């Protein structure tokens, strides 16, 4: 009897098996045929293991980077990258992440069904990453397993609904209708960019789309290329600052320090590439099931979709936003170096995606000036939020990488501070209060 129980626990504590079972249940519930069910379940199972393999590659690249940075500047340097931190966190928090994501999606559907917030968050990878961060924070807060999953799932459901909601006034202005929402966990940054854009835009702002841009920066949209190139630059800068003597003696085993750095930078991009492949496999069955169920259960639901949906509204603002946000990141980095705090290095992926969207919203509210100023502020925001997020992540706060986008920072700091202030009780009370506030039915416009 006991051995049956331990086997069961073994099965459920393996996230790959757990996620595969969730997919299996979803596929059976949708009455898929045997071949689709087998395919979906197996792919999900393998996908989770692919993510873990990618985490291994990333770690071989991040650990020497951290050591070099420490040697060169005597402070910790952190490159925020969602894929990297999630893959590392899943080693320990995989099962809880899977369960929080599963139940969090159900909470999202319930909130959309019964309150005035009709948003269904369909960006699966961001839901996965947020579930992972919440698993970590709830564990650090001191919940035991079951309440940890319950609190995490409710928090996830709330964030999945509120993130699109705070941005919807700006989405209406941008798209000219109220049918779709943006499902990307950097909504706070976009809303701030929109507000900044409105403030600096003046009476008749000139749109970014009136500028003629030189083409040829299209390669930056290919994330493997842009990650590899920026990581090579970062590694070289840090390697030169740390000096060949240290690197060749301590890290590279005699290999030339620049060759070593080049390979490690490539490894970082390779790791992210592998992790993304795994994430795709895992989400392939879960997201369509979620979409299918929610369209049946929630009339008038507004799908909250991934961030590139706003890029087509203002392609010039996308590029301006990226550069301006990156400039904001560099500015923040210099400020942190002078202040002697942990240094957040500007990661190209978050600055590209969130900077671009911040540019689009800044432009919609305040033209060129709005796009430049709004995304610059976004760049500062996504640099400083991780500084305050790191302490609430427990030992993962020392991983040389962390969650990058604004809503992760805001949500993580919010729940983490509550935990520091009053432990699990404070989190439970806050979740109940937020749910009650959301349930108030009167038709007040959601404010940003």
């Amino acid at each position: 009897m006991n051995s049956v129980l331990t086997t069961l626990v073994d099965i459920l504590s393996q996230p790959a098996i757990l996620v595969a079972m969730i997919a299996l249940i979803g596929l059976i519930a949708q009455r898929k045929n045997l071949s689709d069910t087998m395919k979906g379940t197996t792919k999900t199972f393998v996908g989770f293991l692919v993510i873990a393999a990618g985490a291994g590659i990333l770690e071989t690249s991040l650990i020497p980077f951290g050591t070099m940075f420490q040697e060169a500047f005597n402070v910790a340097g952190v490159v925020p990258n969602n894929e990297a931190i999630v893959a590392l966190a899943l080693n320990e928090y995989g099962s809880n992440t899977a369960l929080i994501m599963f139940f969090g999606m159900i909470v999202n559907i319930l909130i959309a069904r019964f309150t005035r917030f009709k948003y269904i968050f369909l960006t699966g990878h961001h839901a996965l990453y947020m579930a992972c961060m919440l698993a970590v924070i709830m564990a650090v807060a001191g919940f035991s397993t079951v309440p940890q999953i319950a609190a995490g799932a409710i928090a996830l459901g709330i964030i999945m609904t509120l993130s699109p909601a705070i941005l919807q006034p700006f989405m209406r202005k941008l798209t000219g209708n109220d049918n779709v929402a943006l499902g990307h966990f950097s909504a706070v940054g976009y809303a701030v960019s929109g507000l900044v854009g409105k403030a600096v835009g003046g009476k008749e702002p000139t749109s970014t789309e009136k500028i003629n841009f030189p083409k040829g920066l299209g390669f930056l949209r290919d994330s493997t290329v842009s990650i590899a190139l920026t990581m090579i630059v970062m590694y070289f800068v840090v390697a030169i600052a740390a000096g060949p003597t240290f690197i060749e003696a301590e890290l590279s085993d005699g290999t030339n320090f620049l060759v070593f750095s080049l390979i490690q930078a490539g490894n970082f991009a390779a790791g992210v590439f592998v992790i993304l492949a795994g994430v795709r496999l895992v989400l392939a069955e879960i997201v369509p099931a979620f979409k299918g169920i929610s369209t049946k259960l929630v009339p008038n639901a507004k799908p909250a979709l991934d961030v590139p949906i706003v890029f087509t509204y203002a392609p010039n603002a996308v590029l301006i936003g990226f550069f301006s946000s990156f400039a904001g990141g560099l500015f923040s980095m210099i400020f942190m170096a002078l202040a002697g705090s942990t240094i957040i290095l500007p990661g190209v992926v978050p600055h590209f995606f969130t900077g671009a969207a911040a540019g689009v919203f800044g432009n919609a509210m305040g033209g060129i000036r709005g796009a430049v100023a709004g995304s610059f502020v976004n760049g500062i925001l996504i640099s400083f939020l991780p500084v305050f997020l790191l302490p609430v992540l427990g030992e993962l706060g020392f991983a040389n990488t962390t969650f990058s986008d604004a809503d992760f920072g805001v949500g993580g700091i919010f729940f983490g501070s509550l935990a520091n202030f009053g432990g699990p009780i404070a989190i439970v009370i806050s979740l109940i209060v937020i749910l009650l506030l959301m349930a108030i039915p009167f038709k007040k416009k959601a404010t940003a």
Partner: protein
Amino acid sequence: MKILAVCSSGLGTSFMVEMNINQVLGELGITGVEVNHSDLSSASPGDADVYFLAKDIAEGGAHLGEVIVLDNIIDMDELRDKVRKMAEEKNLI
């Protein structure tokens, strides 16, 4: 017959387009078409017969072969038109 929806990270947008293509194919009563999604780096010529891309990455994916560019990736009417046109060209309906 294979269709591949492509976006820059291969996670959210291309996935949404894939689901929407499947929906349109269902509406048109077309079966036997395999739809997948991918990121721009991994997609290569030969992966599929037809590629669907959003306007912003059209340039980067021009080498793929038969590329259909979507001006507005959330516009179901546009997608419906373009899938129908493609299906007619391929003698699927």
